[in-house]
């Protein structure tokens, strides 16, 4: 095997660059998609809390006390309340009423509170997405808690003098216990690693990874398949170019384009969303390994496919599970352990983890070295695999 010649690689790279440059539609895609995706994803995930959930609130009790509760809960932005009259039936038909939840204050509720036997409030929840229901229930519970505390304060304030005098007869330590019990107990959260507590800081590697994986894999996957389809591959193979020179020459222009895209996304997220980047040289290394790994994957798909259509289909089949299972947009910990083993196979998983370890945790190399090694192994495996498949074309 001869050592690859720089001149030969440059010829292939320049030709490949011309293909990208001449295909104006793809070029447009390359220029428009990255900033578009960054803006869309950045804003889409800015706030992960539920807001404006359409819900019904039916007050069948109609007392001063229920009015106070309604005043509290109607201020909660989680809900967008509709409040029909007390005679409204059918509250459990959520879809018919076009709401996600229905809260009912049954008649006699105030009475039950006064009698020391509080009735529960019926709450109907749409659990179809398994997410909204628990969030809404939590919000209702929280509002009830607030209401309860205020009612308690009201009762305490309106206690007659003699009752207070009576209370003073209790031993001091018991009285203090009561005071504690009457105050809400809190955990005081100190959020670390994301000082501004913004999702965009978390999701930036996801956006970079998503766009780059999408573009590099699909574009790269088409390069060899296109030559096979148009017959130029054989013309290429009868030249004195070696396989290594063809592969490296084809990778280079796409690598250059991808590096520009990463830079564009990082500049935009820093300028528009104020995301800060830490240890740029380490981030650059992580990006480079990830890019090479994605390009290698594209190349592998390309050498494997007979036509461009097949190449695109294979790319999509590969990319879909990656987006769902790679932890690009949500913590991997949401997935069951067995699935997480599959996630570990995707370059995007390791890219996002390493990127976050550096940029959010400011962690040392020992934390992310395994991810870098996995990415590097991915580069080797895909490139060697592609070269092997290319050899088979010649038979």
């Amino acid at each position, binding site marked *: 095997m001869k050592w690859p010649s720089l001149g030969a690689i440059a010829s292939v790279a320049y030709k490949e660059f011309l293909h990208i440059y001449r295909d104006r539609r793809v070029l447009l895609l390359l220029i428009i998609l990255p900033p578009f995706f960054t803006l869309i994803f950045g804003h889409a995930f800015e706030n992960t809390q539920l807001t404006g959930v359409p819900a019904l609130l039916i007050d069948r009790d109609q007392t001063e006390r229920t009015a106070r509760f309604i005043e509290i809960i109607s201020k909660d932005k989680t809900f967008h309340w509709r409040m029909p009259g007390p005679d409204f039936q059918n509250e459990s038909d959520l879809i018919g009423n076009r709401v996600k939840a229905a809260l009912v204050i049954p008649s006699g509720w105030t009475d039950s509170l006064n009698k020391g036997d509080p009735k529960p409030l019926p709450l109907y929840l749409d659990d179809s997405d398994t997410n909204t229901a628990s969030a809404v229930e939590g919000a209702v519970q929280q509002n009830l808690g607030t209401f309860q505390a205020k009612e308690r304060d009201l009762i305490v304030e309106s206690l007659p003098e003699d009752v207070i005098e009576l209370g003073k007869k209790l031993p001091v330590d018991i009285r203090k216990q009561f005071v504690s019990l009457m105050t809400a107990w809190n955990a005081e959260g100190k959020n670390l690693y994301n000082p501004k507590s913004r999702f965009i800081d978390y999701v930036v590697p996801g956006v970079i990874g998503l766009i780059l994986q999408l573009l590099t894999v699909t574009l790269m996957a088409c390069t060899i398949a296109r030559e096979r389809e148009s*017959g130029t591959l*054989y*013309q290429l193979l009868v030249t004195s170019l070696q396989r290594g020179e063809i592969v490296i020459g084809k990778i280079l222009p796409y690598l250059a384009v991808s590096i520009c895209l990463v830079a564009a996304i990082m500049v935009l997220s820093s300028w528009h969303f104020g995301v800060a980047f830490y240890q740029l040289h380490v981030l650059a290394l992580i990006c480079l390994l990830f890019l090479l790994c994605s390009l290698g994957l594209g190349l592998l798909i390309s050498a494997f496919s007979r036509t461009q259509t097949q190449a695109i289909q294979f790319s999509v089949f590969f990319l879909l599970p990656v987006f769902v299972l790679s932890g690009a947009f949500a913590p991997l910990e949401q997935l069951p352990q067995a699935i997480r083993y599959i996630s570990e196979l995707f370059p995007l998983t390791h890219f996002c983890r390493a990127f976050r370890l550096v940029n959010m945790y400011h962690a040392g190399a020992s934390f992310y070295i395994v991810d870098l090694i996995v990415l590097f192994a991915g580069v080797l495996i895909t490139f060697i695999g592609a070269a092997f498949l290319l050899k088979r074309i010649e038979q």
Partner: protein
Amino acid sequence: MNEPVIVLDHLSKSFGDVHAVQDLSLTIAPGTIFGFLGPNGAGKTTTMRMLCGLTHPTGGHATIADADVWKDRQRVRTKFGYVPQRFSLYRDLTVLENFRFFGGAYGVPARELEQRIERLLRLSDLEEKVNTAAGSLSGGMRQLLAIGCALVHDPPLLFFDEPTAGLDPVHRQQIWNLLYDLSNEGKTIFVTTHYMDEAERCTEVGFIESGRLLAKASPRALKSSFRVRLLEIDVEPLMPALVRLRGVPELLGVSLRSGSLRLYAQEPEKLIAQWRQQWPFPDIRLLGERWVEPDMEDVFTAYSQGYDGVLKKTEL
């Protein structure tokens, strides 16, 4: 005579049960324009692809300038240029960019490349189209460009797979003139074709049928391989006569040529003697008869149809 440039030694290629090329042995001397003839699917393209190192032989071997076309393919590739049947240059690249790319791919030194491209542009008559995308060229110009790109590393041997298929007569002529120029420069040319008039322009012709070589000789020698004389008759009406004559058991074949019918028979003299006595078709008039020299088309028809007794057995 010079050492042969190309040597095929029992070269075979099978795809499973399909024997595309069987036991093909032949040699081609330098400076030859070798025309490789045969019907569609006879194995012409497969042979050429084996010689170009694009597919490996399943039996026998072949050498180009003493280097094995498969084992030494990386080395052999600098020695030939290949123009495949299908236009296989980059359509989105301009004429000049295609030239430059293939120059680079063949490792032509940069300082030589510009001069060589200039010369090839003149040779292929594409000087005015330098900045036109290859995909926008007409069929003939595309083919000239493809030939030009195959010449960029100045190889001593050229493979052309049906270089004139689908081209108009003017462009066919232009391509052949280019081939003569190249031959005149001492290059060896291996060309497949369907056109019999083109076969006549080769210095040597090989017939291949179902993967087997049937004959290899100069066009003159091939034509003289006709053992029998060729009878041509004028009849009226023409088409009914053609259909009826095909049914005559003594006739191996009938072909229409410039308004006359050419008859292939093992003993044409006996047949015409019979007909002179009694013409068997009352509704068809026999207007005239003559003996003609066989051309390449007759030879090709006789070989590919396997007409028994019409051809002398030639030694391969």
